[in-house]
């Protein structure tokens, strides 16, 4: 990677290491990737914001059915743009060292399509739709699935709240293995 620390001061690197779950090496790789993604407009810095479409070119996000939700959730100003620090946030939550509760928190917001802090029928329908892609489940199967989901996980009626969601995910051992990627 050439001169490794040309873009970061030692203090900046330490700060990033402290505030995220990434190691120094991962941060530098992330910087390289970021420059590749947004690079065409001259030397990028760490605060300027770039449109979401550029970030969605990242290989891990390119074919992800939830990529627009991901970039929206991690965008700090919700202006459909992301900065490098938002990108680091994303990588940090997705790293294997992030704890279950944190991932569950973000997963909840990613699945909450209408952003009303509750996973109700509408949100779940969107989730199922995106997960099956065009390899259909028939519409009545999808409805049945959403019904079963709500039946199984909803403890108090009215949709799945964030607490119920977190409690649910403690019973799913695969979540931590599937909800991650690394640079």
């Amino acid at each position, binding site marked *: 990677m050439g001169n490794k620390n040309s873009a970061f001061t030692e203090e900046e690197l330490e*700060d990033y*290491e402290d505030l995220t779950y990434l190691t120094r090496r991962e941060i530098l790789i992330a910087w390289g990737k970021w420059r590749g993604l947004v690079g065409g407009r001259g030397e990028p810095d760490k605060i300027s914001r770039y449109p979401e479409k550029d970030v969605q070119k990242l290989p891990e996000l390119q074919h992800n059915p939830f990529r627009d939700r991901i970039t929206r959730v991690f965008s700090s100003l919700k202006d459909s743009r992301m900065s490098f620090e938002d990108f680091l946030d994303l990588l940090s939550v997705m790293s294997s060292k992030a704890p279950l509760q944190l991932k569950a928190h973000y997963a909840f917001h990613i699945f909450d399509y209408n952003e009303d802090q509750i996973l109700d029928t509408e949100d779940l329908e969107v989730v199922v739709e995106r997960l099956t892609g065009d390899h259909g489940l028939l519409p009545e199967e999808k409805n049945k699935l959403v019904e079963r989901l709500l039946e199984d996980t909803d403890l108090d009626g009215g949709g799945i709240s964030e607490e119920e969601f977190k409690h649910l*995910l403690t019973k799913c051992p695969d979540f931590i293995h599937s909800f991650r990627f690394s640079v």
Partner: protein
Amino acid sequence: MRQSTHRQLSLPQASTEVKWYSTQPVAKAVRKGGSSLARILQANYIWRNVLKRIEGRFGSSVYAFFNFLRAMIQLNLVLSLVVVGGIVVPSVLLAGDPSLQAWGWVTNDNSSGDHDPCLDFQLEANEKASTATSQYILISPLQFLICNENYTENLKEIEQKHEVSFIKIVQDFLQGTGLFEWTILFAGRYPASAGDNGYLASLAYFLSVFTAYLVSFVFMVYFVAKFFRQTPLRLKEKSTIFANIVFTGWDFTVRGAEAARTVHICFTGEVKTAFDDDQFLQRKLRRTKREYVTLLLTRACVNVLVIGLIIGSWVGIYFLVDVSQKNIDGGSNEKFFWEYAPTVTVAAFNFMYPLLFTFVVQYEYYRGHTELLVTLIRSVFVRLTSLVVLIFTKLIVISQESRSCDPKDPFICWETHLGQQVYSVFVLDAILQCGMTFVVDVARKALGRFNNPLLKTLSQIEFFVPGHVLDVVYLQCICWLSIIHAPLFTVSVTCVPATRVFRASRSSAMFMTILCLAFLLCLVPNGMALLYLRPSLACSPFRGLDYSWQVFTYYVCRLTGSTYWIRWVVFTVDEALVVGALIVAVLLLLAYYLSLISVRNALIRRLEKKLKHASNDKVFLMNQREQQQIPGPGR
């Protein structure tokens, strides 16, 4: 933004918001130390690239398998280091000297008076005349050299009798005889000691083997604990299958359009399977008594059949070993055939039986997942036990003979003989696996190039993860079995296939559990060999002793001074009372933890109920408030 957050944090104010990044100095220091250490030990770097590519193309289940493989290879590396460092290297450096073969263990007469186990044996070579400390020498030290020479001379004779031909070399390679026999590949070569005050070779041998097993055991316990911590305990009330499928449905590790399509297909498949299972359960509840009884009978029959087949295979192996012993003389090709027959039978059973089981399990009407598990367990059982039974049978045959120095005796050096058995199984298995991967699978993929749809379906190979796990476990078992008899085996080779993924089966905990069972199963014959059989006179580092573990007693007895406490501990633990007390303590601890688990389960259920009641209360109060407000505006 980060800088401003950081500045905010370093200001000395009490922050009431919970931040998820850590600012505590101790944790910070630990993390810094850990990351700089990791930077130094860049050993994982090679693995990381490969694993990442696998992850991207095939998804997290295949990744889990390769992670398992990597852990196994790391374990084997450590074991190799232990064994090679402890046994092989010193023996190679020192054992070239043929006079070392004269060293052996000499019994002293200890039957008079107070029996002190420390004085039973003594390490001597035949150069020394009988010393004054022993009055009766039951085995003359000269015998060691004579026995050993009988054996090696016999080997050389056999070598020279047959002409060197390609077939002969292939036969030798497959079985470990001829050229390969008197080498460091097998246990017989290692001497009992390296000279007068030299390296304690026999103790090193014993301790290295023991350490290798201990390391494997600790390793497995660690991994099983780690995986079981992630798997939650079953709360039977609410089923979370659908939630599991949907919310963990997308594998975020995949990159590339092909892999993404695969995950979509997987997801749809899993939902359909879950609905099928659901219907199956509904049907199950609606079964009539009569159907139920018929089903139970069928299952019982199938299980009896399976057990019968497995026992049949054991008996077959036993008889084959017996018969092959009797037919050991004959022409050289015939001899090869009879000696190699047990190995080939084991391989044949390993191949045929899983196919049989997949056929038979259809009649038992299990759920899809259970069906897979049952077949897998049966296949594992057959593979591991047939190997173990082979070794066991040989051990029984050996133990029936008494040790002798006759060069015509096939068991003059039984350690090497057992090592050869394991070696031949290993070689055959490796050849078959490489053959299957490189020849058959490559051929199948090549068939895909033709534009015939039939050939195309034939060429799409599933990476059947449990099958490959079984292969790895089997190899590892061979490795463990062989540690005693053939110390060079810990360097194991695995072939990595490159295939496409269509099915995802997930459980790393299952891999480790199977490995644990295999380990325990392998301990049995090795334990028996080490603890109960008399070492042969012509070779092996324990020649002259009654039992191999007496080496340990000998050296413990000679510890004085600062290491005297080891001796005290070993002799105290030996008593039955202490062992009994330890076992009782462990059982009590186990009972305590089990009760703790059940208490916590009950607590979780109570809290869930409470949550439900609290929300019901909320709804009730909201309704009451609405009712009270309705007459309000009308007033």
